[in-house]
């Protein structure tokens, strides 16, 4: 694999990481901790929204994030011909 191609592959990978980790930070730290009081004024059925993110929602999003990452990376590996 050429140096340029490798650099491009790595750059796209880092781009995915930046987006996915921002979502990771948003659902847990922003929704579950920093803005918890504000979000708690909104109700989702019997749940206060901030509380729900801290004890349920963030964990669902974590699982989804990893599977999305797997999909993105498998595609990226194929695109650059580095899949196994």
């Amino acid at each position, binding site marked *: *694999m050429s140096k340029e191609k*490798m650099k491009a*592959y*790595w750059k796209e*990978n880092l781009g995915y*990481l930046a987006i*996915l*980790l921002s979502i*990771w930070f948003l659902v*847990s*730290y922003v929704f*579950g*901790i*920093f803005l*918890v*009081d504000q979000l*708690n004024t909104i109700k*989702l*059925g*019997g*749940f*206060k929204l901030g*509380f*729900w993110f*801290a*004890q*349920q929602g*963030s*964990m*669902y999003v*974590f*699982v989804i*994030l*990893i*599977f999305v*990452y*797997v999909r993105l*990376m*498998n595609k990226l*590996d194929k695109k650059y*011909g*580095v*899949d*196994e």
Partner: protein
Amino acid sequence: MGILTWTWILVGVTFALYIGIAIWARAGSSKEFYVAGGGVPPIMNGMATAADWMSAASFISLAGIVSFTGYDGSVYLMGWTGGYVLLALLLAPYLRKFGKFTVPDFIGDRYYSNTARVVAVIAALIVSFTYVAGQMRGVGIVFSRYLEVDINTGVYIGMAIVLFYAVLGGMKGITYTQVAQYCVLIFAFMVPAIFISFQMTGNPIPQLGFGAAGEDGVYLLDKLDGLQRELGFHEYTSGSKEMIDVFAITVALMVGTAGLPHVIVRFFTVPRVKDARVSAGWALLFIAILYTTVPAVAVFARTKLIETVSNKEYAELPEWFGNWEKTGLLKFEDKNNDGIIQYVADKSANELTIDRDIMVLANPEIAQLPNWVIALVGAGGLAAALSTAAGLLLVIASSISHDLFKKIIKPDISEKGELLAARFSAFVAVCIAGYFGINPPGFVAAVVALAFGLAAASFFPAIVMGIFDKRMNKEGAISGMIVGLSLMFFYMAKYKLGWLGDKPPASEWWFGISPEGFGTVAMVVNFVISVVVSRFTAEPPLDVQHIVEDIRIPSGAGEASSH
């Protein structure tokens, strides 16, 4: 049939299963001993990782902690799951591509230095030993509660079982027993939760049930908030801790999870890089099944408990109350001699002391579930404790036989000799862990939570920079690890253990961050020191820079171990 008979049957059957698997999956080579030959299918690795990860504490204590702290308990829920996102995105695929056996292997090779390797071995041993002592104790406690044997006898039985499959099977035996243990523990956790959720809300899915309304049409969480207020506790759905501390603890737990050697090493056992990525996903899915149920169980148990005992005549309480009083997990002291239980936040007026573990252990009885369900919880707790203990013991054994013996002391050791050394170190490690299980040092309970801080302060930065910063050299990584680890130790000794004179009050914590959250600060310090030192010292040699380029590309993972 009685609870005790059921428990003996279920524990007997599950233990026979674990031993059978261990005989079937015994290790024939050092590669099988350390990483199960690198051939574990991703879903199975996910299950094994989940069982490895969820300890007796997750199974028994977590719901109780959340139950008593409400929103504040979120730090554990998010902290012990969010770390898997970091693992999947930042560590697992690259470490798999690197393709060696242990975490110190990576640190030693990437930082071309046996000093770095030794620092990593020491950190791995400290982290794993603090963790495993608690597990062996947990095995003893579960045995004593469910099978009515002495705690020490319980520890011996647990040691014998773990010894059998860890020494014989190595990682291969451990992996497949962990798959079975995951199935046992998740079944044991979910069955009572589903029963209770249906009983209290009419919805069989606990994750939805605790946001639903009870028979009286009031939302369960609103009812619980009301009960808490009435009794003088803080509202269940809002917190009592400082926001900065909640933030720091969550970061430390997440990063610490991603830096724990017994978790990382699991990703060396799958065949390909893409398998490492997806098996992190499976692991988190399997963990999340339990972790999203925990807050529901916490709410059900707390509501039920308050409704059953608060302001009730002591003489008219159900039978389970007396049973658990005998174990000392419930204590009633009639301070005003009115024969009625006053359970309130005010310590001088409160008459009921509740051990947090009772929330999971006694929950099936409180909800009047059948005896086999109650016994199942015992088998599940044992599965959780044994699987975690075995995973930790393997890390300890391979740190000694592979990282110290093979890599530093006697590099010309034969394959057979190394396998023998690995088995022998596993044996010694089990004995030491058993010793701590029987004579627990007073500080163990306090220190287990801090193992995460130590992992966050040492491994996580060194590994992440080893992958993402090609310029990082041995001077930077070693000084970062040493300063991070020492700083964490110092803070722990001063503010948690009180080893340096009197333990200072919480008001003197740096930036208002508790010792549990301090790993976050130590990690940042590690990063900063590593980067600064590395920029003022020579760049890493060319072949190391090639290693870094190589691990960033997935193809060819199979050959990586021949480097």
